[in-house]
């Protein structure tokens, strides 16, 4: 498994990408997709990536659903803020969040989730203290944001990359 | 015929909205006030330009727009990354 197929997930993703690009899949393109998926990951050996182990596929699906719902909801929230539909005053500012997640891949995924959701921006992470600085567009309650990040994203990510 | 008319008008309107978005982002890129604002505006011009190309491909029914959109997305990513990196090291105090 590891000698012949160093990165099975990457191989699968590359083969799927090749198939999608050459849309009606014929035997010839399927063969090429298999070759690309098998050979290109060997290049990754030069980069010496750390071993990434992913578990709990059910948690992955649930996290993906949560993120999808949150992205749509915060898109609408930010659109309302921009168009000035929210009554009252809006505060914007920075929130500091103590993180327990230490896995580098987990942190990378968390940064993509947080920044990909409109209204929150990952500003700085201090790996020494494990504190994350976040900029929030609509900051009504700082503690609510801390709880939201920790409960909705950090806990599932710690289960996935444990 | 009716479907073609609907597509031509509806997608034309969508394309117009995206071009307007490009113009607004270009205004921010030209206006500043600071270098990071200009880079952010330029990135948004790239993004909306890519979306406009995709809608154009829908309107003309041509699959070629996909390749163009992919190239624009790649160039936008590389350009913004290079500019952001330059902002960190290219000036002010080291």
């Amino acid at each position: 498994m590891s000698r012949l197929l160093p990165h099975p997930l990457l191989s699968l993703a590359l083969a799927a990408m090749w198939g999608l690009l050459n849309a009606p899949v014929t035997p010839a393109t399927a063969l090429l997709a298999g070759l690309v998926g098998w050979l290109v990951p060997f290049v990754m050996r030069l980069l010496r990536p750390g071993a990434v182990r992913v578990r709990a596929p059910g948690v992955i699906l649930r996290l993906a659903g949560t993120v999808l719902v949150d992205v749509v909801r915060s898109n609408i929230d930010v659109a309302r803020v921009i168009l000035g539909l929210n009554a009252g005053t809006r505060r914007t500012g920075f929130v500091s969040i103590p993180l327990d997640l230490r896995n580098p891949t987990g942190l990378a995924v968390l940064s993509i989730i947080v920044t990909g959701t409109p209204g929150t921006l990952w500003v700085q992470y201090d790996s020494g203290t494990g504190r994350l600085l976040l900029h929030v567009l609509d900051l009504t309650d700082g503690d609510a944001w801390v709880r939201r990040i920790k409960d909705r994203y950090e806990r599932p990510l710690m289960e996935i990359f444990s | 015929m009716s479907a073609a008319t609907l597509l031509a008008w509806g997608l034309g309107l969508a394309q117009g909205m995206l071009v307007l978005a490009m113009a607004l982002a270009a205004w921010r890129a030209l206006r500043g006030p600071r270098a990071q604002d200009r880079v952010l505006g330029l990135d948004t011009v790239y993004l909306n330009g890519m979306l406009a190309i995709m809608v154009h491909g829908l309107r003309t029914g041509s699959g070629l727009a996909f390749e163009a959109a992919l190239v624009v997305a790649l160039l936008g990513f590389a350009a913004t990354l290079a500019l952001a990196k330059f902002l960190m090291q290219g000036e002010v105090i080291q």
Partner: protein
Amino acid sequence: MTGADVPVWTACLVVVLALTGAGFSLVGAIGLVRLRTFYERVHAPTLGATLGMALIVAASILFFSVAEGRLVLRDLLIGVFLTVTTPVTLILLGRAATYRDRAEGNPDAPPDP
């Protein structure tokens, strides 16, 4: 290869999806003009890069799938690519702005985490 060979319901759905997506993208660009500080403005383009992009990609997948009579999923690649790259550019831009503001002692600069 013109848009004429799809049924009316597909055309309606494609137009609604594309218009909503373009609308979100336009609102993002308006935010880029209207919001006051850089750290507020960084949030605006994400609108077009997430929901706006997803809706237009969905419109494209639907249109070409119906027009060609098979599932055409290659536009998903643009979606995946943008989803992965947009946070990278925004984080790096945010870092650059933070660095510059702190180096100049700007009162708007982010506090330490």
